């Protein structure tokens, strides 16, 4: 198996290099046959790398401990599901997985766009394959998961117990799907620059790729939070840990890109800017992979020791240099043909949205890299912990919520007095909520956030109402339904907006009103946390797979009824580390989150108990976000997915307009 896998890596590398060579030669010499040959070969790395991946999977499933990777990440007792997920559980495996996905995307892109975008595809394929060649080389030379030892150990070490959770099975593949997915829009952007076809064609062609990547990354972030919450046992779901940040930053810039792309498609504006954003998004996705994989942020020293750090860094510099070099080369052609008519317009709101998303991403990136900077400059290791991130990102988050409402309300081009009237109800909602919240809750940050949520939510709902009214001939409800039929992109996008608002409420509430207690109790003792009265009934012990388990039995009364919670403490002899598994009782109002922190043989237990308000809203919002984005990305059957860009020509008011477009 090891030989087969290793051989497959080299074959894939050979095919990739040949393909790049053939395409470049064919394009330069204008020999169509060479280009065709190159594009055909571009389909081969995917099946070849699938063979490598299957070889590694077989080794994992059959406990082939001759492979160092298998021995390090699984043991004889590792359950089937986690032997499969060990494929991406360790460094070498996850890089192979990344590379395999990229090869698959490259092949799919060639298949899908060969006919529809014949001018762009050779260039885009060459760019994708160039990135692919780098990654295959990295896996084959420096991080080969097929490395073997002559004398295999009798048993492996097993997967890190913290990774034994369904959240960890889906979280990394989703993130990788997102990271890798952005390579396709990036490659098409480069193709547009190289060919000089700088209209919105490349954006329309890759719109669904972009949304899929962006969605996967977003869903991956939520899944990661869900895993952290249920497994790590520190009471929260987002620790602003460097690895989490590394995935958040490309998502934020990707969000700016998704919005900016809408403007370019619809209005033919912001071409250079959109280009810049897609380059940044992909570069940050590569940086994200790199940060998680090299330990850069743990310390400069582990970084210097990492074998893959120098090639990664070089690759990143080359990627940025080449991309922005191309943007600079085409700068004159990237100028917008139609000027921005007014800042008080939807385009204007999108611009400010972009500035804020970038600043948000920059602050997170700066905070993440600051320890490295400080160590390099002052020689002092400092931490940049959650307080920094919360203080810096909270105001930006609130501003973004406000802009979400403003952008929805403003028309394209320029807002007339009539358009501004649409602000009346949302502003009233904002003021009403602000005053009510101001009276009830003393925290200005929370009040501002809730007012912003009320504004954006009412603005969005009002848009649905207006849309349904414009289709009143169908009847209100059918009109509303029709919005998802013929205006799926916009109204599906608004669903994603509403989902984000639901999440925002959960995030604000769970940060602002968390209550926590740490108690040491004997069986039969009783204590209260928030509205819960908890009786500790004693300690039980037993066995779990690979581990010894102890759990406390808690009787929880909340005034109306009672439930039993069992926070676990697991000890994995193989890893010599105890792990706490929290017990959570979740309702829409709040979560009771109990952790067994320590215990003595006579049954005394130290418990940490949190009351986390409205955390469930975050998971519900997360699911709704996925569904809303899927609606927006769903093919628009009737119109054949043709983008409805508004040409920057004047339509004289006398012209009869199609019924649907008569608005407000």
């Amino acid at each position, binding site marked *: 198996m090891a030989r087969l896998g290793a051989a497959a890596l080299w074959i894939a590398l050979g095919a990739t290099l040949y393909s790049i060579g053939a395409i470049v030669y064919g394009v330069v010499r204008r020999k169509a046959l060479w280009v065709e040959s190159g594009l055909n070969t571009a389909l081969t790395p995917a099946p070849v790398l699938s063979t490598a991946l299957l070889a590694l999977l077989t080794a994992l499933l059959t406990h082939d401990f001759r492979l160092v990777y298998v021995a390090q990440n699984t043991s004889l007792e590792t359950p089937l599901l986690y032997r499969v997920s060990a494929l991406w559980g360790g460094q070498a495996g996850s890089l192979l997985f990344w590379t395999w996905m990229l090869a698959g995307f490259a092949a799919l892109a060639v298949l899908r766009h060969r006919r529809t975008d014949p001018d762009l595809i050779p260039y885009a394929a060459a760019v994708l394959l160039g990135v692919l060649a780098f990654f295959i080389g990295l896996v084959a030379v420096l991080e080969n998961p097929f490395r073997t030892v002559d004398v295999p150990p009798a048993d492996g070490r097993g997967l890190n117990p913290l990774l034994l959770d369904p959240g960890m099975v889906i979280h990394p593949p989703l993130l990788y799907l997102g990271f890798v997915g952005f390579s396709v829009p990036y490659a098409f952007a480069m193709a547009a620059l190289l060919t000089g076809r700088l209209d919105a064609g490349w954006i329309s062609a890759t719109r669904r790729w972009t949304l899929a990547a962006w969605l996967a990354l977003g869903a991956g972030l939520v899944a990661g939070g869900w895993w952290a919450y249920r497994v790590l046992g520190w009471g929260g779901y987002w620790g602003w840990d*460097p690895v989490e940040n590394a995935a958040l930053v490309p998502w934020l810039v990707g969000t700016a890109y998704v919005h900016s792309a809408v403007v370019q498609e619809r209005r033919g504006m912001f071409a250079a800017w959109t280009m810049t954003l897609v380059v940044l998004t992909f570069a940050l996705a590569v940086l994200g992979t790199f940060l998680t994989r090299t330990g850069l942020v743990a310390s400069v020293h582990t970084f210097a020791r990492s074998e893959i750090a120098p090639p990664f860094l070089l690759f990143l510099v080359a990627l940025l240099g080449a991309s922005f070099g191309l943007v600079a080369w085409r700068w004159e052609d990237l100028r917008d043909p139609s000027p921005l008519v007014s800042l008080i317009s939807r385009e204007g709101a999108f611009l400010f949205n972009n500035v804020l998303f970038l600043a948000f991403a920059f602050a997170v990136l700066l905070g993440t890299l600051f320890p490295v900077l400080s160590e390099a400059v002052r020689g002092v290791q400092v931490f940049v912990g959650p307080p920094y991130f919360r203080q810096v990102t909270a105001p930006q988050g609130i501003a973004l919520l406000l802009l979400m409402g403003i952008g929805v309300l403003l028309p394209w081009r320029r807002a007339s007095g009539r358009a501004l009237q649409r602000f009346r109800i949302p502003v009233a909602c904002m003021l009403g909520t602000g005053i009510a919240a101001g009276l009830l809750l003393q925290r200005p940050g929370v009040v501002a956030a809730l007012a912003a949520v009320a504004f954006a939510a009412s603005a969005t709902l009002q848009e649905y109402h207006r849309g349904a009214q414009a289709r009143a001939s169908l009847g209100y409800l059918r009109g509303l339904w029709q919005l998802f039929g013929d205006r799926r992109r916009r109204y599906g996008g608004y669903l994603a907006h509403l989902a984000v608002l639901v999440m925002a409420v959960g995030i604000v509430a769970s940060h602002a009103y968390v209550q926590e207690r740490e108690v040491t109790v004997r069986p039969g003792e009783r204590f209260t946390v928030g509205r819960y009265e908890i009786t500790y009934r004693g300690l039980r012990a037993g066995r779990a797979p690979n581990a010894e388990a102890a759990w406390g039995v808690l009787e929880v009364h909340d005034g109306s009824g009672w439930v039993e919670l069992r926070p676990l403490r697991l000890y994995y002899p193989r890893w010599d580390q105890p792990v706490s598994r929290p017990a959570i009782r979740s309702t829409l109002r709040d979560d009771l989150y109990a952790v067994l922190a320590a215990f003595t043989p006579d049954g005394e237990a130290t418990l940490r108990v949190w009351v986390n308000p409205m955390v469930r809203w975050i998971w519900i919002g997360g699911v709704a976000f996925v569904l809303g984005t899927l609606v927006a990305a769903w093919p628009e059957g009737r119109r054949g997915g043709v983008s409805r860009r508004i040409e920057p020509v004047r339509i004289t008011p006398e012209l009869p307009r199609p019924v649907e477009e*008569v608005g407000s």
Partner: protein
Amino acid sequence: MRWVLPFLALLVTSTVAAQTLDDRVREVASRLMCPVCAGRTVAESPSELAAQMRDLIRRKLQQGESPEEIIAYFVDRYGEGVLAEPPRHGLGTLLWVAPLLLIAGGAAFVVLRFGRGTGTTEPPDGDEELDADPL
């Protein structure tokens, strides 16, 4: 509507409840990093040492020490690395100033570049409504 006021008053008084000792411990602990575990604050960390530190914070608060004094005490013992947030001077200023500059710069750029230039190509009023509707 007369019933609303007492109701509101009730809610207000019930939420203004003074900060408990638990909250204050949490506040101080979340400003310190646990020295033995990667990337967790003392408030969150499940480690033994963090538990002891929380205990110490509680006792110091009970003795009337201010949060600042307690933080200074820990910095004295463990060095600057124990702070969850770098000090706001020297290089640390960069953390706070740079994002602000980016926002201010970005907004200024947008306004200066696009703020005027509506000029003469402005469409007559009413025209813009063409796409104001639920497209």
